[in-house]
């Protein structure tokens, strides 16, 4: 596992000698531009303030490592950045510590945390940080005409070329149905039936021969940049960063986006509970959440953070507001990932997806 240590700043703070007993907490997240945004907005200021250390590790999502550590009674991770469905599942299975929303600081405008957080962005075991989205993007310099709808992604006749898609049924089946004409509000209802699943796979079949599959969030911008695909699904922040930091000619299509949450969870028996909880309180306050939004285009889950969201950290004229999945213009045809649907059907649909892939 790649191990990025952000102990330099902490080393300095400790060397100055302001703190006697420094804690070291291990925080696990998704790597790349996303982890960088967390390091800049959360880790560094927290290290500077408390004199503690943060060891930052990368993973590709899922609960397996957490389960392995908890079951073995040898927990190394203090905090993990997970998707909502995993937060709910982990809580149900007793893999996670409980976290109390009332322990968090009020919003800057005085609203208690429980009301300041958007509805559904915290659970008994998890505290939300950002809203992110699965969108599709294309390389504007390589397209004759610009695709505009989710249906265009599945239309290889009008827009020939390879497609990048995450090797996972989640979000893909939803997008396939929306491209097939199902309104966003009815997607999960349709997907709940056998015919609906058939219909989604039939739509996926129409582009199967043109797909390059990706697994890690950092891959899709690379596939686009290499010209390996002409369009790819991706996490919106990764595409945004390729555009903002590396001046890539990528465009995001928001039509048919599937948005979701990322949340902090603490594996049961985490070695540094107190310091980790302190980090959660620190990183999810109004200012920190707003600060993260200046590094990557993921929306803060606190209402009080929204007005503080400014411009990209080194580009004052790049306003972050319109880049967020939650911006009104981007929400015209959007779908929230239904964690309960996926908790119920994940295993079966995964199997069916794998069988479909192998065919």
């Amino acid at each position, binding site marked *: 596992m790649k191990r990025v240590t952000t102990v330099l700043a902490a080393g300095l703070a400790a060397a100055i000698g302001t703190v006697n007993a420094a804690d070291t907490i291990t925080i696990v997240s998704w790597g790349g531009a996303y982890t960088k945004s967390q390091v800049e907005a959360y880790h560094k200021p927290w290290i500077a303030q408390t004199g503690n250390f943060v060891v930052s590790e990368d993973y590709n999502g899922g609960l397996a490592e957490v389960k392995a550590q908890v079951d073995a009674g040898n927990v190394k991770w203090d905090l993990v950045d997970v998707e909502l469905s995993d937060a709910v599942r982990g809580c149900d299975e007793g893999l996670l510590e409980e976290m109390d929303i009332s322990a968090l600081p009020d919003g800057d405008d005085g609203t208690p945390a429980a009301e300041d957080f958007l509805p559904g962005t915290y659970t008994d075991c998890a505290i939300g940080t950002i809203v992110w989205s699965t969108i599709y993007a294309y390389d504007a310099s390589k397209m004759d005409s610009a695709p505009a709808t989710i249906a265009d992604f599945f239309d290889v006749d009008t827009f020939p070329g390879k497609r990048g898609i995450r090797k996972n049924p989640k979000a893909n089946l939803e997008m396939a149905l929306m491209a097939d004409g199902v309104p966003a509000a009815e997607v999960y209802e349709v997907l709940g039936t056998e015919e609906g699943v058939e219909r989604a796979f039939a739509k996926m079949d129409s582009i199967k021969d043109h797909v*390059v*599959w990706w697994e890690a969030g950092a891959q899709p911008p690379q596939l686009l940049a290499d010209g390996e695909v002409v369009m790819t699904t991706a996490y919106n922040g990764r595409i945004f960063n390729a555009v903002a930091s590396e001046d890539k000619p990528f465009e995001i299509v928001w039509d048919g986006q599937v948005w979701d949450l990322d949340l902090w969870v603490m594996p049961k028996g985490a070695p540094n509970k107190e310091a980790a909880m302190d980090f959660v309180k620190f990183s999810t306050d109004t200012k920190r959440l707003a600060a993260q939004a200046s590094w990557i285009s993921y929306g803060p889950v606190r209402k009080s953070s929204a007005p503080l969201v400014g411009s990209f950290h080194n580009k004052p004229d790049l306003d972050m507001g319109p880049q967020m999945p939650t911006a009104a213009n981007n929400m015209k045809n959007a779908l929230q990932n239904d964690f309960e649907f996926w908790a119920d059907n994940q295993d079966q649909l995964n199997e069916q997806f794998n069988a*479909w892939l192998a065919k």
Partner: protein
Amino acid sequence: MADTANVEIDDKLLKKRLDKALFKNRSRAFLLVLPLLLFLLVAFIGPILYFLSHGFIDKTFAALMPQTTEALSEWDAVSDPTEEMFAAVVADMVVARKNKTIGRVATRVNRDKPGTRSLFTSSARKAAKLEAPFSESLPAVKKDWNDIEVWQAMKTASRQYTLGYYAAALDMKVNADGSFERQDEKRRIHMTLLLRTMQISFLVTVFCLALGYPVAYLLATLPARTSNLLLILVLLPFWTSILVRTTAWIAMLQAQGVVNDLLVFFGMTPDDARFSLIYNKTGTLIAMTHILLPFMVLPLYSVMKGIPPSYVRAAKSLGANNWTAFWRVYAPQTIPGIGAGALLVFIVAIGYYITPALVGGQDGTMISNIIDDHMRKSLNWNLAAALGGVLMVIVMVLYYVYDRIVGIDNMKLG
């Protein structure tokens, strides 16, 4: 007379002493290998057996829903569920909710009857407030409790010792009454992948042999200085991380990569119809052949090094032409090397995981990628264990077949 008695006593004494000395030697030897033996037991054989046992044993449901398990054991899986069964489920759910284990129960049953996860988690939330008769109050919370398939799934899940996972590993399923049946066509995948894994491993072995044999021959016959340099060229990639070598192949083979660029440059393919050399079976074969090549070259080299050149010279001086001398005299002596190399390459290839995961795309992934999927994503470690068990049995069968055909003694690793 007295002499013979003496000799007899001496004989016995001598035998005793000899035995004692032999025993001492043996136990000394045993003590010497003891640390390794213990290490293998504790760090290798033990964990493997323990993990493989997950493929047969699954106590999740029985441990977390004890009353239900008992109530279900008397049920015939056909008649309507009784009030006792409902009462047992409610009582167990109250406890499981309190201990935060209901999610494990829900996940377990969900494997046999998809879509039931939330049935358990949401019913458990209300279980403490329910009143008898439970056969009416529980279905009032969620009407799915009237579905007999839910109860059948629970009965299947309540078996502590089960062949269900091994059946699933072979695309079969166990019904509530204990009979086996083939999995729905939409969900059959493991046999396809097992066959593909064998096919890819076999092809990689053949390619490695075809490429490695001449290289090993050169290494063994060239003068020391040149052959040492060549040997370093063989070993250098061997020492490089697999991940690095695999990603290097991605850069080489992708549509905008070096190979395709060259082909376009020389006009061998039009720019808009570049070859798909990666993210498919071709990519997996190329990358794996390259990565496993040293496993073929090194045993071949060590065997060829030991073949005196005089044999071939003798054959030629007796009138054999080059081909006959090679085929009838040289090649048979390299069979131990071919055997060792082929077995090594095949066995390593059959469990290969990183390379197909990175370059396999959809038709180049192998059985180990599905095992990984069940370890990391679906968290179905029991099925992962069963798949691992199947893979191990296949390897052992192949080993046995190899032993019968080539003979395991007739193998030289170096």
